């Protein structure tokens, strides 16, 4: 019997890897990676990121849930549990699945997953960060939202960047992996109009890496449930206009945050 560990983000994957190190998940477990955004077919595969290397090293097998469910969506797999079990079994080479470990219930009504253990992913994140060169710390980091539709992501990002510009002209935007590609264009315009520079973090660099590289930089986010992403802002002593802007940004994000 082999544990099946389901993750939807780098944050969850790093926690799962840390749980293997802590002995909470067996070394021969299978890691099942899912993309759960509105258009997963165009989303970057977590497994394709260089940051995935330390996670890959901790599991016997890595499988892609979207490939297994194709063409259905992991959050709405309109196939029977029997067909799902057959496809899983084929994809995993006939392995007998023991526990399903997951923070989400995305694989069939029959699966009763146990939650992902609370293991500190800091060492995994540090290992993933080592080969990256992220440059000097910016004035603020904007953590992108995961909106439900395409028009909204741009507005959310633009609103957050407008708020973040109160802290300085050097802003890094880390788009949510499920956000549509180039949903940062409106935010770029906002930054350009303010004479500021907006660096959009490469898709291959998970948000967690940016947060680990620049631990003291204030963050603007909408609380998208991303792994280790901290609630915004991390520096509550900056009040006044900034706080008001943050409230605006938060309510914007609340209005647009995608809830499956």
């Amino acid at each position, binding site marked *: 019997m082999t544990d099946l560990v389901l993750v939807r983000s780098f944050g969850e994957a790093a926690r799962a890897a840390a749980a293997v190190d802590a002995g909470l998940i067996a070394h021969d477990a299978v890691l099942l990676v899912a993309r759960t955004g509105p*258009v997963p*077919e*165009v989303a970057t595969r977590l497994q394709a990121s260089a940051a995935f290397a330390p996670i890959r090293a901790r599991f016997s097998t890595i499988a892609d849930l979207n490939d297994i469910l194709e*063409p259905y*969506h992991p959050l709405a797999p309109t196939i029977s549990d029997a067909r799902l079990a057959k496809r899983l079994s084929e994809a995993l080479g006939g392995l007998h699945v023991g526990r399903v470990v997951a923070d989400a219930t995305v694989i069939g009504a029959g699966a009763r997953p146990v939650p992902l253990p609370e293991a500190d992913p800091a060492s995994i994140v540090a290992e993933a960060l080592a080969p990256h060169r992220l440059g000097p710390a910016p004035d603020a980091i904007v953590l992108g939202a995961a909106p439900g*539709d395409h028009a909204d992501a741009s507005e959310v990002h633009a609103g957050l960047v407008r708020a973040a510009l109160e802290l300085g002209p050097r802003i890094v935007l880390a788009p949510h992996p499920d956000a*549509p*590609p*180039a949903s940062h*264009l409106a935010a770029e315009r906002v930054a350009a109009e303010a004479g500021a520079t907006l660096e959009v973090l490469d898709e291959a660099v998970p948000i967690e890496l940016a947060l680990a590289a620049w631990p003291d930089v204030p963050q603007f986010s909408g609380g998208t449930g991303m792994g280790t992403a901290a609630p915004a802002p991390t520096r509550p002593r900056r009040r006044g206009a900034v706080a008001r802007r943050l409230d605006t940004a938060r309510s914007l994000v609340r209005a647009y945050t995608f809830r499956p």
Partner: protein
Amino acid sequence: MSDLSVIVPMHNAEAFLPTCLATLRANDADGRRFILVDDASTDQTPELLERAASEMPGIRVLTNSGNVGAWGSRNAAHALVDTRYITYLDVDDWLAPGHLDRLEAAIVDLGVDVVRTDHVRVDGLARTLVRAPERRRSIGYPAQEAIGPAGRRAVVDYPFLWAGIYDVTRIGRENLDFDATMRTAADRPWFWRLYMTAGTAAVVDLHGVFYRKTANVGALTQAGNESTLHIIDAFARVRDLVVASGREDWTARAAASAADMVTFHVARRARLSPELRRELYRRAGDLLRSFPDDARAAGVATLPREQRAVIRRILGAS
């Protein structure tokens, strides 16, 4: 080396274009052309296209000086095609990574004029696999068999341009253009002409096109507005084609399809205003009466009893 052009018309598409471009990147190949037609957009579409063209060598951007609609845009793209094969994509839809490689391989391997595929209809996160109405898979057959006898749904009734790939050299460049005077459903007569005149056809089990049902708010079957009635114009074009062909079986087949379409819209008449309803009955009656009597009778006879009753009432009214 790819020998395929992908034609993507768009108007004010900034909300969908980034996803569309990502899907094209995930389907890029040496030699593959992406002809993106900007139909006089007034949003950020031109800037997004310019940026994309600088990043992907296969992209050709064609900008219409005035708004000519999706059919005219596709026709304008036809003039730029210098590859053997073409396919189409709507800007709000997307493809599975590598889909175009599999699609192109299918037509190269089968050596037929046209290959059609299944597709996936997307409604939020829910997805439905929609199969092209043909049981024979991955095997070439005479294209005329895609029309089939009256009373049986066949591939000619599957009017999804993007669920297919077309061999320009076999079909003939002169047969590519759409009737751009039509507002909607120009693909209906286009597919009829294609299957009437082409040599060979096939259907394969691919389903890599994701068709976004909800975004398409103006879609014919959903809209309760005047454009609903344009489908009648589309079937009038089909009637012209089959009558000109002199094939009585095809004429009966087209009459059956026209009658089936009419009953479909009559069943959904609640969406129409009283004025549009009267217009539907009048124009539907004109369309059906314009078919030769024998062919109409033969076609209508293949419909279920309830539909025949609707057609009798439509034909009785004047």
